[in-house]
């Protein structure tokens, strides 16, 4: 019993919600019905586009050679270098702290300080899977406005950090201590 609970712990909210909803319908508890209507609406909204978005992301993943872009990042500089780091960041997924090890690796490969911070900026808010969800939920106008305002600011932060750290022997460590 204990091991069963432990194994299925992650379903506990879903199960509790299902039980309460069934109870609401059985007892004619109106708030429960209203919440369920809300839930069905948002569930339908989600299930009709999110799985397809992920398939698109999966196809991107197999067709766009992330490793090859990564190889070029240390060597390219100027505008081309900036475009490459932004592109690489856009192809990633996951939370921001997942970008720190990549920043370490890019640093080791010789990427400039500027480009590393531009990478972090782009990673935080221009990832394609997240843009896809954002467009789905908040609309293309919102995403477009946010992206166009963000981009120059990230690049500015990259330049600012480079200027600030120029003579400070800045090193990124591997995070082990």
């Amino acid at each position, binding site marked *: 019993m204990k091991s069963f609970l432990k194994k299925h712990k992650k379903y506990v909210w879903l199960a509790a919600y299902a039980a309460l909803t069934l109870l609401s319908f059985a007892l004619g508890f109106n708030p429960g019905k209203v919440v369920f209507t809300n839930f069905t609406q948002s569930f339908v909204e989600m299930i009709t586009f999110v799985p397809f978005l992920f*398939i*698109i992301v999966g*196809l991107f993943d197999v067709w766009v050679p992330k490793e090859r872009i990564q190889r070029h990042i240390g060597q390219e500089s100027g505008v081309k270098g900036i475009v490459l780091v932004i592109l690489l960041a856009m192809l990633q997924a996951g939370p*921001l702290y997942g970008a720190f090890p990549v*920043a370490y690796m890019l640093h080791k490969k010789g990427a400039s300080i500027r480009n590393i911070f531009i990478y972090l900026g782009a990673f935080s808010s221009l990832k394609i899977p997240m843009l896809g969800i*954002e467009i789905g939920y908040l609309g293309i106008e919102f995403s477009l406005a946010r992206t166009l305002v963000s981009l120059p600011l990230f690049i500015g932060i990259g330049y600012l950090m480079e200027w600030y750290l120029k003579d400070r022997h800045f*090193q990124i460590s591997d995070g082990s201590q």
Partner: protein
Amino acid sequence: MSNNAIIYISVCVVLSAVSFFLDKGKTIAGFKKGWNMFKNVLLPFLNILILVSLLIYLIPPSVITKYLGAGSGVAGFSTAALVGSITLIPGFISYPIAAGLIKQGASYAVVATFMTTLMMVGVVTLPLEIRYFGKTVAITRNVLNFVAAVIIGLMVGIIL
């Protein structure tokens, strides 16, 4: 069917067809990858949808409009920026929350500030960030990003 569904399904079908035509094996590998990613976010997604459905019922639009709406001013803005900076909500599941807030009367500027601080500033993950970049740089990055996030929020509010 919603516009979203139509657009995403069409793009998905077209890309899959092109990909399949070019390389069958790669396409199937891509499908598997995408499906696995979806499976990983499905449960947290469902949990957040339950929470949002509940909150939409419990918190009347008038309250959201008052505290996070267009007229909420500096207070609404600061709340959004602070909550966004401190909490650690995975990107995917923060969007249904944002959409719910807008539906209930929050302004675009406030929601944009909440979303950008959520993405760009990480108070909870700061110790981890310090291990990679050192104290000064990690804090500087977060402060700069906080300022940028507030500017982005304001600008998006002005544009939309």
